């Protein structure tokens, strides 16, 4: 079956694309702040505590995503204490599209955290100290000196996290399952279509995913080139 034909079939919906994008975008924003916050926090902890917190934060990267998903069900399952407590306020992370944000954040956070931590650790601390002696506030130093100096690392981290969130399958399928039009994402759709022998459909969504990834990576490269050029233009 041809791609154009597939799009015009009766049951077709763009929902998985829209759902994947909103989950990936919101997760990326959360991961950005959480990752920077935890990296900043960990870099100030005493050595022993640092090792432990570091291991906990990195764990989702080395665990199979399905195991992460299992843990998430243990925490947010409707019969679990936290799940029940949240349910009082009408919040349910199981089998809802925004549950996908929880699973994506869990799996993508270590990528952001580790790259950001690497960037912070290579940051020349005399810059911050110079800022302090000049009377600059710590908030100003963080956002206007430390962050720009670590921009490359943080940008790399956020791109990795976005790509990971977009491609998240294991934990997401455990937590929110696959309900067409409600929780289906691109990756769960690909699996579902392939499983039901809809090869053209699976291929279609594979190509959509490829296209998004290509656009993101190209955008990052363009951004970096522009920054390099901007620096060159100022040269004498």
């Amino acid at each position, binding site marked *: 079956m041809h791609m154009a034909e597939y799009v015009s079939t009766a049951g077709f919906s763009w929902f998985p694309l829209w759902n994947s994008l909103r989950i990936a975008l919101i997760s990326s924003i959360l991961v950005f702040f959480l990752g920077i916050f935890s990296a900043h926090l960990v870099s100030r902890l005493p050595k022993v505590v640092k090792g432990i917190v570091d291991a906990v934060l990195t764990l989702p990267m080395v665990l199979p995503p399905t195991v992460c998903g299992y843990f998430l069900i243990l925490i947010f399952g409707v019969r679990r204490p936290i799940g029940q407590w949240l349910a009082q306020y009408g919040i349910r992370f199981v089998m809802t599209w925004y549950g996908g944000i929880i699973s994506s954040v869990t799996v993508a956070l270590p990528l952001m955290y580790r790259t950001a931590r690497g960037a912070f650790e290579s940051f*020349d601390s*005399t*810059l911050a*100290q*110079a*800022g*302090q*002696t*000049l*009377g*600059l*506030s710590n908030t*100003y130093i963080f956002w*206007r*000196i430390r962050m*720009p*100096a670590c*921009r490359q690392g943080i940008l790399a981290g956020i791109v990795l996290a976005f790509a990971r969130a977009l491609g998240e399958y294991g934990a997401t399928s455990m937590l929110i399952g696959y309900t067409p039009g409600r929780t289906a994402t691109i990756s769960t759709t690909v699996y579902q279509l392939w499983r039901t022998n809809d090869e053209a459909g699976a291929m279609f969504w594979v190509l959509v995913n490829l296209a998004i990834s290509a656009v993101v990576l190209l955008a990052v490269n363009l951004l970096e080139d522009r920054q390099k050029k901007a*620096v060159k233009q*100022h*040269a*004498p």
Partner: protein
Amino acid sequence: MRLEVDIQKALGAFSLHASFSCENGITGLLGPSGCGKSLTLKCIAGIERPDKGRIVLDGRTLFDSEKHICLPPQARNTGYLFQNYALFPNMNVRQNILCGLRKEKDRKKKEQFLEEMLRLMQLTDLQRLRPHQLSGGQQQRTALARILASRPALLMLDEPFSALDAHLRLKLQIELKDLLHTLDLPVLMVTHDRDEAYHMCRSIAVMDHGFLIPPRPTKELFSDPGSLCASRLTGCKNHSRARKISEYELEALDWGIRLRTAKPLRDDLCMVGIRAHYFHPSCRDNRFPVTFVREMEEPFEWVIQFRTDRQEKSSENLWWRLPKDRRPQQFPEELGIAPVNVLPLYPEETGGTEADPAFAEK
């Protein structure tokens, strides 16, 4: 204006003990790398926290362990010129200097002061450049402009010339000295370079193994270093164990000679130092027979190693430096030394703890 410091800090096996005061003008902190010079500056700036003691600047208490006062660096109003200048790489020269002016709320005054700083530091044409596009000297001027813009009550310079090429150093030392003289500020300058300290500083505090010997006028320190550590740091090459014989005479035990001195000796005399430049073949005083060992040619001087006839076998050769035009045809059989150039050395009043020097300056 006056700075008073009396602080102690332990870092592993290393311990810092610095007690001194200084007023307007340049005071040097001279010491080998790893002796705690930068750490002292960082404690004053508030980047490091001393274990105990107090720091008072212009009557303002910056730190007092007993009264539990420890102002954050932002509130101390001290200027710190870092070894690598610590310019913010994401900002151009102008923006960097503006960082020192953020306290100034009046926009017109701010602009005026900025222009003044750019002009004073000859940075007007460079104001749109990023730090990595500047030469070492321009970076130093930018960093200074940024500090002066924040109107500090104290200026601290951490090895200000170490990041510069050797041929630029002297030129910039002269320029910086002229600039600093126009400021009415106490300036603390950390260096391990004896010539730099001699050019720039009105008085010098010598530091070794975390222990600071309070500042003395520069010329006085060089003519009478008083302790082995000060003698070494001011560049004296020849040292021998010594004991007092009479009020004006000592015996240099390693060299097997007796030397007369210009000033009366104290009983606790332990070492004697003689600078390599001060031996003279025709000097009538303190003559002793010598044997030539080897010589080395430098562009403008000869460096000669020799031994005295009754020198201890295990002790090191002595050094003699002399300008090329004063080199005798034959190596003299005897050398002399004027009593005023015999440097009596005493134990340091309170010894710092011996420690691994690599530990200290981080």
